[in-house]
């Protein structure tokens, strides 16, 4: 199931790599290019930071986040205890990718 999600998302033209990570940074599933261990560590690091920020502000559960820098763009989704990280091209349309992620995660109907 996890491999199916990361496999489908990594097929998107604007996505360079996808990783699903445990809270300990263990790679549960991956697809596309890049070092999955590094990607998992980065994904969990940002997701856990975001979770603490949400708790401090009483904003509730972390759902998703993005960060840009050095010509890279990273999309991170909180998936219960796990985190999903997508490494996308800087010029990528985030809304299209976000729509597709929601479809794969079961939040939206497939168009």
């Amino acid at each position: 199931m996890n491999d199916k999600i990361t496999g489908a998302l990594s097929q998107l033209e604007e996505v360079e790599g996808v990783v699903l990570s445990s809270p300990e940074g263990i790679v549960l599933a991956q697809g596309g290019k890049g070092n999955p261990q590094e990607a998992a560590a980065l994904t969990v690091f940002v997701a856990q930071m975001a979770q603490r920020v949400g708790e401090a502000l009483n904003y509730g559960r972390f759902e998703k986040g993005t960060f840009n820098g050095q010509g890279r763009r990273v999309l991170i989704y909180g998936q219960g205890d796990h985190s999903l990280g997508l490494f996308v091209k800087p010029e990528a349309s985030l809304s299209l990718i976000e729509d597709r992620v929601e479809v794969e995660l079961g939040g939206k109907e497939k168009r």
Partner: protein
Amino acid sequence: MKDILRDINAMVGVQGSFVADGKGKVLSSVGETNFPAGSLGGVSQEIFQAARSLGFAHLNPDEFDLSFGKGRVIARLIGPGMLVILCSRDINIPLLNLTAEVAAKRIEQLLESAKESKFEPLELRVEYMKGLTLKGGGIWVDEELVRGWGLEGKGSSHKASVRKGGKVKLLRVVGKKGLGRTVKMLVHDAKKLGAKEGDTVQVFA
């Protein structure tokens, strides 16, 4: 700086905002009462530390956009500090980006001028010197004060920035004997800052 943050908070959906320095210390905030006491400082440290760690990994993020069940946090890393906006999930993002872009530029200017300053800023009262025709604009400051900044005293001229609210004006500081701890500003310079006689401005030498 507060004025800039108030402009951001005037937008529908914005619940609070703050500016932090290059160490994650909150310098100014608006809407902090909408959040648990002391939480903005913790949030600032979290984001700052994350940005720093990602920088070590050569990622150097310039923006975080985090969405939660009940809110959204947008952090822009600007020069030596960061601007953080706390808002509702359904905020009009294109409009917020426009507002944040303008605000970030103004804040960056403020942070940069503070960073370049070697000395603690001084809060001094504005007194007009009508008829003063100091070429290029300038402020007269007591010689003793100029020396206290580690600069040369009487008759010397140094670069300085004077601030009031979110506005900054670059001027020369001119050391002059016997004026006391008072900033003497040209009327037109004071007007550009929106300062009136008797107002307090910050001087950075």
